[in-house]
């Protein structure tokens, strides 16, 4: 992957050239030649492939294992160029039968390895590669059918997770667009049997997980289908069309006369490795669809949702993003140069695939900000067409906010505000004035309000006031200044006012902690008269005066606030020794900064870090101490999750009971948001929460729970069942 390696230095570091000896120079050159074949070139793909096959054949005596390794790697890592490389292998096999056999063996070894280490996504690409080798006369069709028979028979295994059977089914079905025709021509009876076994498996498998993974809860305009169901519909349609598939580029067709002379190899019998405790299979998915042929009436027709073309295009675009996500310019260029771009509305496919990843539940395959930057690059490369598609998509997403999953709405808000900040916040806000007449807690006005809030955080208050029409002022964010209760002379009569003034002067004059304490000494304690058996004394007024004054003085910036907190750490500790004291500090911080959401969340983080960690002593002791800390942290973490779930259950149950007794509809905007937040917690932290399943089932999510809440838990369990 030398080209990728060198250009991967997008972190700016020049790659130092080592002085290399001849063999490794040749190896690098071979790698580069193989990686680059199929890309834009002055010669045709066929002549490039033929030339390369000749070069590799000549190098086989000396560099065979290196060539085998490179080819196996591109099969795994460059699935979007699948047919280019299968053709290359076909040509090599025609010239050198033994090499073809060794390559097939190496691929099988690699497949077994991938399955052993849970690399299931790469394993699918390997299976697809093997199946396309049938088209290149490298592998005999009957042996491929036999392998698929072993795959499908996994669905007969007992006591295995459904996700295991799902994977083998997916590996079989998703190869058929490439090789269905050839396999059916050679072994139609066996294929029919496999397909009918597939159908019965798909009918009996459970799909409890689907609601948790859908981006929209509505089925209109496009149903959000479970991925295997969608693929099955696509394969059924392909079969009805007599396996005619015209979208995939098949360079091997041009070499038919050469390839059909080649001898084929039989795949060795492949036994799927057994299920183990360590096996982790991919989670099920829901197919995201937002466009159909009606959305681009002027351009080429978008393939239907159950056409196999749609599947292949989406697979390839996802593969391109997977290969190039770290280099946004390359990624954008590769996406836009996807072949067939005058026969399909490529911009629409690209935008749909990108949003599919951005909104994927539980989480996007890559970091969210990558998608924002990728879309900006695409807009730069296609300024005449892509921005319009993106605007159309944004409008559609806005129209469907009422049924959109809350987590996805969050991501939509983050994406849209960040995107706007790169385009001078230009948007036709008036088009959305319908949201102004709604209750402000409804999804659409809430969305606009939160977008404006985030836009403000990326710029400044006046800027946002300037870009929205006056009618939108009800949704505009508040000016994020701190609210200092003792700042105004009119509040002179507030208790503690004079102390606040003294404190302000003292802090400005760099008073010591002792001096601060002596100033605060005289603040009366409104809790003094309370019956205080447990000795939990704290003086809320003292806390209020100190915290308000300090934060007001340090309001200039984050850094100022943080150094203030650090400097007066001791004072905080003394004033807030009890839990109640701590809570009151948090309350006051909230009051001061409630208009400035960033400050509010950051000021709270600081305190826990303060416990001094001793870094002296021998390494083993340090490690032991750290291990203890980790264990205690892990048990605190478990408790934290239990408390969080308990609170959610309480809140939701209250609401459900109230609705049922009052005879009103349960599904208020608040309820939708709350239950989806509960889902989000499960999904976002699924790896950790899996460890607590038994406790959760026995303690919290028991059968007595209201079925609305229990359903969320059951859907989560179904994800790895």
């Amino acid at each position: 992957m030398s080209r990728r390696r060198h250009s991967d230095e997008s972190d700016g570091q020049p790659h130092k050239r080592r002085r290399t000896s001849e063999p490794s120079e040749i190896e690098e050159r071979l790698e580069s030649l193989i990686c680059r074949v199929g890309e834009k070139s002055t010669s045709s793909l066929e002549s490039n492939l033929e030339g390369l096959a000749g070069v590799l054949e000549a190098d086989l005596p000396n560099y065979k294992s290196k060539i085998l390794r490179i080819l196996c790697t591109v099969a795994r890592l460059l699935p979007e160029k699948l047919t280019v490389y299968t053709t290359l292998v076909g040509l090599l096999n025609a010239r050198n039968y033994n090499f073809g056999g060794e390559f097939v063996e190496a691929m099988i070894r690699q497949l077994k390895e991938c399955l052993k280490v849970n690399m299931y996504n790469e394993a699918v690409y390997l299976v697809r590669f093997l199946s396309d080798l049938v088209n290149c006369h490298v592998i005999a069709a009957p042996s491929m059918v036999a392998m698929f028979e072993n795959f499908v028979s996994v669905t007969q295994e007992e006591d295995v997770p459904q996700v295991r059977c799902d994977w083998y089914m997916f590996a079989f079905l998703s190869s058929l667009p490439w090789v269905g025709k050839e396999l059916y021509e050679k072994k139609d009876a066996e294929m029919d049997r496999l397909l009918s076994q597939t159908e019965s498996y798909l009918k009996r498998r459970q799909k409890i997980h689907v609601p948790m993974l859908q981006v929209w809860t509505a089925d209109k305009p496009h149903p959000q289908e479970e991925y295997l169901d969608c693929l099955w519909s696509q394969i059924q349609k392909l079969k009805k069309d007599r396996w005619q598939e015209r979208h995939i580029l098949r360079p091997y067709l041009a070499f038919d006369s050469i390839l059909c002379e080649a001898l084929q190899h039989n795949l060795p019998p492949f036994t799927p490795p057994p299920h183990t405790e360590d096996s982790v299979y991919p989670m099920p998915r829901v197919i995201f669809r937002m466009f159909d042929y009606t959305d681009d009436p002027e351009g080429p027709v978008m393939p239907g949702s159950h056409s196999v073309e749609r599947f292949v295009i989406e697979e390839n675009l996802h593969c391109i993003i997977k290969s190039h996500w770290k280099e946004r310019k390359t990624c954008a260029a590769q996406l836009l140069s996807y072949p067939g771009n005058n026969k399909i509305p490529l911009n629409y496919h690209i935008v749909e695939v990108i949003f599919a990843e951005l909104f994927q539940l539980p989480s996007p395959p890559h970091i969210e900000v990558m998608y924002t930057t990728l879309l900006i690059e695409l807009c730069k490369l296609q300024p005449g067409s892509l921005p319009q598609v993106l605007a159309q998509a944004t409008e559609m997403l806005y129209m469907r906010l009422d049924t959109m999953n809350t987590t996805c709405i969050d991501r939509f808000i983050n994406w849209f505000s960040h995107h706007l900040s790169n385009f001078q916040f230009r948007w036709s806000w008036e088009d959305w004035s319908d949201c102004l007449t709604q209750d402000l807690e409804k999804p659409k006005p809430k969305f606009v309000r939160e977008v404006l809030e985030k836009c403000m955080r990326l710029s400044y208050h006046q800027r946002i006031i300037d870009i929205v029409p006056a009618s939108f002022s009800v949704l505009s964010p508040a000016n994020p200044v701190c609210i200092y209760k003792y700042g105004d002379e009119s509040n002179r009569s507030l208790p503690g006012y004079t102390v606040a003034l003294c404190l302000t002067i003292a802090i400005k004059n760099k008073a010591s902690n002792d001096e601060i304490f002596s100033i605060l000494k005289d603040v009366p304690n409104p809790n003094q008269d309370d019956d205080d058996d447990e000795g939990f004394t704290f003086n809320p007024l003292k806390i209020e005066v100190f915290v308000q004054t300090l934060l007001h003085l340090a309001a200039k910036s984050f850094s100022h606030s943080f150094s203030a907190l650090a400097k007066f750490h001791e004072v905080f500790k003394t004033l807030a020794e009890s839990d109640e004291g701590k809570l009151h500090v948090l309350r006051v911080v909230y009051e001061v900064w409630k208009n400035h959401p960033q400050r509010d969340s950051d000021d709270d983080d600081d305190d826990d870090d303060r416990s001094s960690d001793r870094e002296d002593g021998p390494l083993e002791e340090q490690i032991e101490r750290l291990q203890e800390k980790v264990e205690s942290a892990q048990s605190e973490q478990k408790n934290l999750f239990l408390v969080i779930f308990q609170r959610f259950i309480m809140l939701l149950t209250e609401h459900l009971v109230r609705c049922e007794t009052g005879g009103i509809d349960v599904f208020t905007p608040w309820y939708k948001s709350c239950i989806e937040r509960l889902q989000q917690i499960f999904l976002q932290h699924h790896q950790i929460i899996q460890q607590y399943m038994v406790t959760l089932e026995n303690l919290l999510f028991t059968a007595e729970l209201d079925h609305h809440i229990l359903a969320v838990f059951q859907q989560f369990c179904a994800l790895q069942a």
Partner: protein
Amino acid sequence: MEHSFQLISHFGKLTSSGQESGILFISIFHKINFLLTPLGAGLCPQGSRQLQEKSLKISSTLYVGNLSFYTTEEQIQELFSKCGDVKRIVMGLDKIKKTPCGFCFVEYYTRADAEHAMRFINGTRLDDRIIRTDWDAGFKEGRQYGRGKTGGQVRDEYRTDYDVGRGGFGKIIQMQKANHQPAIY
């Protein structure tokens, strides 16, 4: 409730950004990170080019340039947090006026997060300006000040274009204009 939710999801960010499972609390994470960092990097002498390059390769601090003088720390925090938790931001200041002069340092807790910023924030806009990020060997006291003769950044001394976000014309041009200014009254 939304608010508390944001606190909780902030707490959760460490795992969803791909870190090893099990170690969640920020203080513990830092300590382990510290134990794994080669100590040598912090001790590299100023002039040594090789060691300088080495420390850039493990750095998780970025220099950020072409900021507007009016861009605030909060804006920088909001943007750069999209790549991971920001450990600290040091605003670049005019040495004389002690006001922001158009650059800053952003330090992440991990190298991986800083790499994301180099990939996805570098070359995009903040305050409507295309900002540039570069690897930095690490903030040291004193480096927050501009090194231009007039107190700001050197690039603003000789700039000939008019840039509203960076004080108008470059300093040298401004002084020339002042000298040639005819008396108005």
